[in-house]
């Protein structure tokens, strides 16, 4: 199987804090990958690096065989010019706006546009980025809302929706971008109660079967990962230390960090 997205040796610092160090991840087409890891372990950062919401400073990312961005690893020599234009720790090889169209992102805090209704949130991308005609975009938006079971709330404002409903709208907004090839889902189960997690699981499975989407899911929820993932990655200390099909990884943890993580999850039940 050919890799759709390949991130190799990713490094990322925020100031003095090294969040990612030599993290590598390969995403194949039609695959669902779950990224597990402790809080503050860099899961969200890794996800944001994939669609250039954060710029890496080490390693490189390839999409469908094309180099997208490469980090320099070290900051270039400072000169008098760097006072006015500070040096960048990366080199961007594509147009980032066009590259981001290939990704749908569902954020942990949903990030719906608060002043736009549900349907306006959905048509924003298709109309203004993909230059779709508004009536067509509306029809598309309705079909996406139906897919997530929110068809009856299309004229509501995000503030009038519950957290679970906002999440579904956020998923629908990502689906409405027809240029979307990879769906990045950040902590989508963390704000939901168990029955809603189950229905979300059903939704993810349905989307995968019907739309052949590739998904990268960041989660704490081990049962969810077991159910939905083709491959599970465990992130520790800014790097991916364990990777494989869920059946293997969960029954036979190799690293002490992953063992401790699984035990802690068991103990909390």
């Amino acid at each position, binding site marked *: 199987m050919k890799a759709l997205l390949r991130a190799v040796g990713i490094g990322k610092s925020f100031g003095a804090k090294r969040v990612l160090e030599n993290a590598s991840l390969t995403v194949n087409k039609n695959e669902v990958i779950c990224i597990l890891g402790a809080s503050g372990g860099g899961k969200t950062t890794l996800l944001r690096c994939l669609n250039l919401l954060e710029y890496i400073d080490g390693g490189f990312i390839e999409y469908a065989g094309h180099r997208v961005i490469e980090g320099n690893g070290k900051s270039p020599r400072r000169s008098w010019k760097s006072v006015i234009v500070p040096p960048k720790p990366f080199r961007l090889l594509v147009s980032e*706006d066009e590259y981001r169209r290939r990704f749908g992102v569902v*954020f942990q805090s949903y*990030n*719906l546009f*608060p*002043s736009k209704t549900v349907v306006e949130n959905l048509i*924003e991308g298709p109309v203004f*980025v993909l230059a779709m005609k508004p009536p067509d975009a509306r029809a598309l938006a309705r079909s996406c809302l139906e897919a997530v079971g929110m068809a009856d709330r299309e004229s509501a404002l995000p503030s009038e929706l519950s957290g679970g409903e906002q999440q579904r709208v956020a998923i629908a907004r*990502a689906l409405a*971008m027809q240029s979307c090839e990879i769906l990045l889902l950040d902590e989508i189960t963390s704000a939901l109660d168990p029955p809603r997690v189950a229905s979300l699981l059903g939704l993810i499975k349905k989307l995968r079967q019907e739309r052949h989407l590739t998904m990268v899911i960041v989660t704490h929820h081990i049962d969810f990962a077991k159910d939905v993932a083709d491959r599970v990655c465990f992130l520790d200390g800014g790097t991916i230390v364990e990777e494989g099909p869920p059946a293997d990884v969960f029954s036979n943890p190799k690293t002490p960090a992953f063992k401790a993580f699984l035990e802690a999850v068991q103990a909390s039940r």
Partner: protein
Amino acid sequence: MNDYVWDWEVVRRYSPAFRNGTIVTLLLTVIIIVVGTLLGTVLGVLQASTRPALKPIRWLVTAYVELLRGLPVLVFLIWLHYVAPQSSAWLYNAIAAIHDLLRPHIGKLGNAIMNGISSRAFATAALALSLNLSAFVADIVRSGVTSVPRPLVDAAKSLGMGSWLRLRRVILPETFRASLPALVAMYITMFKFTTLAAFIGCSELLNTVFTAGNSSYRYLELYTMLAAVYLVVLLPSTWCARRLENTRWFRRSL
């Protein structure tokens, strides 16, 4: 105790002059608000940008904003009217150009008004107060842009929006909703600052009253009327602004 005999007849006698003065004042206010807001928005967005290449421009904008906010409006107005044309032919020509630009459009309004508007003082007042407003609007817009939540910008980015589209569709609408009360406060201030134009000889409302008083000596009635006209114009406008803040469209972001 007070044996002044009020004679309100004078108000009726000068009512055409009052009307003309009010129109000049309102026109001046509209020009100031439109030009000042447009220029101020551009400057505010530049100031809020984080692009490293724009750093020298940000310095210039900051200098401009600090300079104009630091000068009293009347001082700036007087300086621009009397000093600047003497010291710089370029500025003199710029004001003359504004003056020429305005003149043909208002011929229909009648001679008295046209004389008010086509004076060089009107052009100078429009320029000075627009620049002054733009400095304040720039600061309001800058703080508005920086207070747009980062997650919304991330959401716009993740939809593939470029920087111009993000600005137009997400950042500026949020900014204006958040800063409308501050902007309205500035607009009210600018409306009241148009009285300063009287001191360089622009025949707006206050100047009309000076002229009427010089010939009738009925200053007390005229000044009372003057205050009433300002209130009659201002109170409904502020009421409308308050209503706008309470509409669903406006509250959507709150």
